[in-house]
């Protein structure tokens, strides 16, 4: 009996189907829990899914690369989904036109604050240089952040982790902080979340308000552009 079960497990583990299924299942579970508790920001579905999956993979001794063979089908959709962000932008074009100068200035300063504050705090806590470089582009969407990190001599896969953690954190504490300071302007709220928490923040903003979602997506794209250009220049200047 026991041998039969482990044979089936070995067979299933070797096919991408199992880990694709588990990825969707973990996310669905996280989403249910999140909705159950009135979308309380600290119960972020991505965080719940990641914790559940890491636990399962660790217990079953499954390497990440084996997991990714199944999960890559979900990961691949990030590309077309990023392209699709053109739609909310297009729908909000008149609002964006009206505040073009505030948008551009906020991106420049926001990009510097996001990278500068992370490096400054990390440096105060004596983080190693590789970790500091890897954490600097943490607010930039994953593929660009990995590219920046690699260019400066960081660890791209570590950067990917920091980026995801930052996104989850921003989606968790961002709305709470914005409520605390009584920001009511959906455009500004979405924009601030998008600068700090890129796509994960945008995903959350999109669920709350169309305006917030569009401005968050806009902020994410512009921040990626600004940081990809500014960070390598500044890094050479200071280090």
């Amino acid at each position, binding site marked *: 009996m026991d041998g039969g079960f482990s044979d089936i497990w070995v067979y299933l583990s070797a096919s991408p189907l199992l880990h694709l299924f588990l990825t969707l299942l*973990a996310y669905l579970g996280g989403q249910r829990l999140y909705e159950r508790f009135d979308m309380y920001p600290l119960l972020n579905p*991505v965080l719940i*899914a990641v914790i559940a999956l*890491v636990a399962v993979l660790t217990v079953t001794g499954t390497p*990440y690369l084996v997991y990714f063979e199944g*999960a890559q089908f*979900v*990961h691949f959709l*990030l590309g077309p*989904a*990023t*392209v699709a962000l*053109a*739609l*909310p932008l*297009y*729908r909000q*074009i008149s609002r964006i036109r009206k*505040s073009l100068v*505030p948008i551009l200035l*906020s991106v420049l300063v*926001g990009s510097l*604050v996001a990278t500068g*504050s*992370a490096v400054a*705090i*990390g440096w105060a*806590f004596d983080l190693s240089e590789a970790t500091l470089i890897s*954490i600097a582009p*943490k*607010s930039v*969407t994953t593929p660009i952040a990995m*590219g920046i990190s690699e*260019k400066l001599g960081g660890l791209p896969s570590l950067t*990917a*982790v920091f980026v*995801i*953690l930052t*996104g989850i954190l921003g989606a968790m*504490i*961002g709305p709470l902080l914005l409520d605390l*300071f009584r920001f009511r*302007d959906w*455009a*500004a709220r979405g*924009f*601030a*979340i998008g*600068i*700090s928490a890129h796509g994960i923040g*945008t*995903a*959350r903003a*999109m*669920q709350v308000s169309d305006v917030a979602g569009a401005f968050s997506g806009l*902020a994410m794209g512009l921040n*990626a552009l600004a940081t*990809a*250009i500014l960070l*390598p220049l500044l890094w050479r200047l200071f280090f």
Partner: protein
Amino acid sequence: MIAAITLLLGCQLLGELFIAATGLPLPGPVVGMVILFIGLMIHGKVPAPVAVVSDTLLRNLSLLFVPAGVGVMLHLALIEREWLGVTAALIGSSAITVVVTAFLMVGLKKLARIGGED
């Protein structure tokens, strides 16, 4: 629907080609987003199937970050070693960035409006 999916992938492909040709430090999908945006501006409206496919993808955007997030298991040792600094930097910087950007955006919008009334 197939046409809409083909359009999204086509924009992404054009974006990748653009990056390969120019060597700009940007990801292809972001350029693809700009290409689709320009296309929508020229066309003047969003075709219904494109709206259906895009909105479905965007409603489930969070899910798409899960596989990369699970990559945290590759770096558990390093994070265990430097967890305090990493946690402080991520939480501190996220909080500062959100609040500063929101204040700046609201302040600048007010300033622009006052400037416009003069």
